[in-house]
């Protein structure tokens, strides 16, 4: 592994500041961008992209099956009253998907890529991958970049969506966390580049949801605009569990065609890690999937170790890792401890001499369009991971 890492002493701080992205390069995050670049083999890059395309189709297939089966739906952690909107969404918004990111184990050093999870609803790492990664490569003289068509992929997708309606109005909303705000700003810029006519970013509390009047916000004082597209950076599972009144309102507005939401409601099915257990049931032994079950006893061999994951967990919170299927070898606290869990067989990761573990990710928009990578020591990848820019050998 170490021979494929090259030094990246040049840091893109000035560029980040110019782009308004210094959040990723200063303060607590001053060491977020790794001081090394990882060079992929072309076949590794191809395999990671192919994994994204295959897994996207496979998981969507399983999601549809789950929606048709109330018992499965309940195990996904989806309240029964969510079903009408989910069904409407599958029927009417199946092609409205904008962006998602698969996290992979392996995929390097001869280890096969395996799907750890799919960030189907509100995936992060967009600005880092789309803007900072190319700049890191440029400043450090790496001529050949790993596949990275994230910006082009998003803009093409937004252009397609916008082409359906002349003069597309899009509202891009977040919940106020600085990183999420930057991600939303990055997406809004893509919509502008794609020719959307009215693009506005706002924090969710500022947005008016009006089942009789549509989605409304004030881009400046005294000016009220109605928006047809809502690109949201608050998850569907959060709406269902924390703001059910908003779910009801969105259900009415979406089914009455007042608003379309990106990503659509059905992505909540793919966001649930329980879907991976059903995907394994539907495709046992599939080379991209890790054995996943609701009970460790249902894994092919729990002694090979597993990771216990809350179905709608994020950022490594409330994960527990067992290396031998008996004791807990690593665990994180967090906000998702009350959720149902799944058990996923432990997967091998590539590590370097310093024992950092490397996790590749594949963006789908919805075709696989870009790769990125993070690394961290220890068994759990969380907020402390470093972002490693990817070149190609």
């Amino acid at each position: 592994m170490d021979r494929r890492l090259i030094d990246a002493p040049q840091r893109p701080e000035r560029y980040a500041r110019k782009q308004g992205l210094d959040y990723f390069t200063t303060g607590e995050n001053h060491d977020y961008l790794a001081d090394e670049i990882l060079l992929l083999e072309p076949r590794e890059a191809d395999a990671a992209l192919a994994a994204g395309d295959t897994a996207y189709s496979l998981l969507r297939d399983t999601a549809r099956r789950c929606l048709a089966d109330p018992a499965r739906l309940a195990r996904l952690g989806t309240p029964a009253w969510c079903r009408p909107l989910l069904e409407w969404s599958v029927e009417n918004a199946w092609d409205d998907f904008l962006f998602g990111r698969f996290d992979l184990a392996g995929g390097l050093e001869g280890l096969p890529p395996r799907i750890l999870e799919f960030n189907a609803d509100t995936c992060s790492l967009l600005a880092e991958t789309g803007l900072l990664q190319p700049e890191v490569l440029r400043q450090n003289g790496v001529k050949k970049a790993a596949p990275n068509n994230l910006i082009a992929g998003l803009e093409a997708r937004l252009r397609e969506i916008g082409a359906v309606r002349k003069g597309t109005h899009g509202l891009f909303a977040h919940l106020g966390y600085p990183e999420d705000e930057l991600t939303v700003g990055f997406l809004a810029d893509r919509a502008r580049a794609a020719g959307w006519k009215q693009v506005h970013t706002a924090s969710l509390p500022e947005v008016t949801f009006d089942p009789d009047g549509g989605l409304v916000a004030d881009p400046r004082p005294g000016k009220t605009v109605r928006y047809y597209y809502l690109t949201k950076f608050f998850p569907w599972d959060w709406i269902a569990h924390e703001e059910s009144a908003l779910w009801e309102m969105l259900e009415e507005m979406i089914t009455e065609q007042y608003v379309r939401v990106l990503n659509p409601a059905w992505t909540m099915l793919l966001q649930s890690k329980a879907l991976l257990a059903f995907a394994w049931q539907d495709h046992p032994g599939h080379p991209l999937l890790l054995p996943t079950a609701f009970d460790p006893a249902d894994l092919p061999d729990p002694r090979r170790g597993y990771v216990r994951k809350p179905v709608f967990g994020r950022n490594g919170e409330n994960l527990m890792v067992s290396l031998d299927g008996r004791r807990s070898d690593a665990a994180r606290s967090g906000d998702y401890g009350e959720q149902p869990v799944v058990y996923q067989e432990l997967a091998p990761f590539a590590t370097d001499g310093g024992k950092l573990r490397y996790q590749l990710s594949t963006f789908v928009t919805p075709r696989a369009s870009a790769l990125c990578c993070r690394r961290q020591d220890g068994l759990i990848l969380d907020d402390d991971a470093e972002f490693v820019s990817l070149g190609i050998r």
Partner: protein
Amino acid sequence: MRPTRPLLFLTVTAGLGLGLLRCSGESEPGQGVVTTVREVAPTEFRIADERPVDQISDSRVIVDRMSGDRDTFTLAEVKAIEQTEPDSSRVRRPFHSAGLGYWGFIMLNRMGRTPAASAYTNQAAYQRATGTAGSSLSRTSRARSGFGRSSGTSTRSFGG
């Protein structure tokens, strides 16, 4: 505003525009109205708001399309469209589909007739139209904002 057949408007409206209103005798309305017609489903329009204005000549129909486009028509222009466009025409559909409520009442002078509730986007707009005509309707009575404010969410990322 959409530049739809401007010449046609001018010619037709000069003759017809106020003529219809004038021949209405004692029941001629003394007020105009600004009506907002909203596309609630593709090519299906309802009245979202009606706001009285002092002069009949200040009357307008604002057509709010799902695309976000907004067109404003004067009394004369609506008349021209009603007279010259076939029923099925895209331009005419907003007026046709919404029945035009109080606007139609002024235009056609049907004194004493209240518009149908089904012509409105919601009960509140209908009540405003049939009761004391209300103010601006950019947000209706069921509108809500402030979602996510109470959950103290700005301290954590929702990215995955």
